[in-house]
């Protein structure tokens, strides 16, 4: 009787384990199918030429499959977006966690959550019909669909990730540190800048990296707003074609299992590993520097 119950319990545990392991299986499946559809391109072009090739002319005869301009496009918009989103996200987190009165705190948290909830296609649409014409007119540009526009919109998308994870990290700073600082005659500002933020730094770094990963993988915004030029940009108001935009825009036209089709999957592989690296780095930082507890006996 007890033995069967034990066996049943073990079977249930095993079952749940299989469910939990399914995420790993999925990750593996994603990789397998990206490889299956993407690797054939390397019969035509070497991985080095693919990644560092400067010309992306997949529909020319003969086609050229160099995604360097796409990688540069992705990195440029990601870094500029981060440069805007990191201060906004971290400072808003400081405001929410340390300074704002309770009522404003709740409102701001909802604001951040709602921004996170807005579909990316809507943000892309906003960038197209509002920001682009405004930019074109104000700065007298050939097109308002460019790096700056895409970065601004991406920054708005990255703010919620950065803000909410940073806020968690700030909130987790033990109260003892704050008390110690105040008891030594520090002002609130000094306590925030010299004690709370340093103690939350690993969490804030994780937030920043995840925010960047969010921006680099985002598709609709760069598809609609970045302008689509597959060339290495020379100014902040040039158009670019980041990797996700290239995949989304061209997959519909690429003939099934053509070189172009395989090249787009291979671009997906590069994108996958790039974001994977960001995520693993974030995971490493958040574990490596897990808050050293306060006192031990």
């Amino acid at each position: 009787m007890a033995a069967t119950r034990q066996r049943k319990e073990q079977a249930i545990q095993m079952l749940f384990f299989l469910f939990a392991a399914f995420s790993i299986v999925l990750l593996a499946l994603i990789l397998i199918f990206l490889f299956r559809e993407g690797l054939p391109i390397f019969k035509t072009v070497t991985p080095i030429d693919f990644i560092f090739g400067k010309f992306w002319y997949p529909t020319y005869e003969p086609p050229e499959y160099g995604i360097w301009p796409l990688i540069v496009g992705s990195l440029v918009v990601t870094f500029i977006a981060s440069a805007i989103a990191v201060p906004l996200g971290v400072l808003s987190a400081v405001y929410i966690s340390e300074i704002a009165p309770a009522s404003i705190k709740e409102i701001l948290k909802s604001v951040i959550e709602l921004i996170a909830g807005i579909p990316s296609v809507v943000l892309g649409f906003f960038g197209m019909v509002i920001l682009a014409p405004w930019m074109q007119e104000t700065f007298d540009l050939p097109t308002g669909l460019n790096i700056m526009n895409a970065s601004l919109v991406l920054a708005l998308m990255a703010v919620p990730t950065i803000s909410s994870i940073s806020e968690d990290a700030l909130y987790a700073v033990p109260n003892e540190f704050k008390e110690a600082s105040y008891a030594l005659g520090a002002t609130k500002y000094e306590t925030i800048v010299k004690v709370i933020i340093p103690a939350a730094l690993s969490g804030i770094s994780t937030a920043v990296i995840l925010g960047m990963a969010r921006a680099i993988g985002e598709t609709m915004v760069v598809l609609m707003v970045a302008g689509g030029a597959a060339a290495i940009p020379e100014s902040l108001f040039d158009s670019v074609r980041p990797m996700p935009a290239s995949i989304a825009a061209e997959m519909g036209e690429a003939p099934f299992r053509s070189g172009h089709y395989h090249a787009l999957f291979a671009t997906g592989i590069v994108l996958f590993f790039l974001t994977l690296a960001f995520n693993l780095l974030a995971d490493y930082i958040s574990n490596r520097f897990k808050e050293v507890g306060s006192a031990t006996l």
Partner: protein
Amino acid sequence: MNLTSDNSITWRYAKQQVFFNIVRLAALLISAALGGLLLFIIASGIQAISWDFITLPPRDSMTKGGIMPAIVGTFYLTLGAIAIALPLGVASAIYLSEYARQGTIVRIIRIGVNCLAGVPSVVFGLFGLGFFVVYLKFGSSILSGALTLGILILPTIIGASEEALKAVPQTFREASLALGVSKWGTILRIVLPNALPGILTGSILGIGRAAGETAPIMFTAAAFFTAKLPESIFDEVMALPYHVYVLATAGTHIEETRSIQYGTVLVLVALVLGIDLIAIAIRSAMRKRKKW
């Protein structure tokens, strides 16, 4: 000791004031961005909205008529996605929260879930195309799209459910186990019911996320235009986010269809943020009621 005047208390408070104002400005900018965005969406979309707009299919090469098929399509895709992700996600969370002991395997699973959460949506689209559409021969269909979206929101559901399960006090479990109830019985009768509101909130947020995604369904489910409603899970469908994208970029009548675009954006945003607000409301109600 040199007590220099640059560290007088007045100066220190002045620095604090400057810092606080910068921080407030950041918060204000973010709020203004959301406010401006919503204002634009509502103001420009409201005149397009009518009963016909919501209940009729598009006509005249999508330059007139409504968006009903896109609403229905998004509904099916979202429903399918949550039907797939919810059981899988809750089961995974039960393992991670109730059964798993700290160790390498659990660590790997956690990293896996985190990485899955970080996969770009367009890569999910590629995977859906390679696996569901091509390999499993589901074609571009509701089934392929719902499966792809389901995988996309799986990490969200796992995360929210695990948090909800962990928030159930350990004493509840101990009380049940001490009465001779098996572990599974305890999970089923004590832990899950208490975690239900949290799981619900997470699932609703997952639904909102799935309803708004475009890139994953571009190659797996979404049709440029279908006048008829889907009859089976192997049919292609229109979807709200894809409809916005198509009208705004690929159509030959971009300017002509502006009003339809604005209307569709408003419907999409109202739908997604409405879903999110429901989740937020449930959560805050739950927090107020919670006694432990």
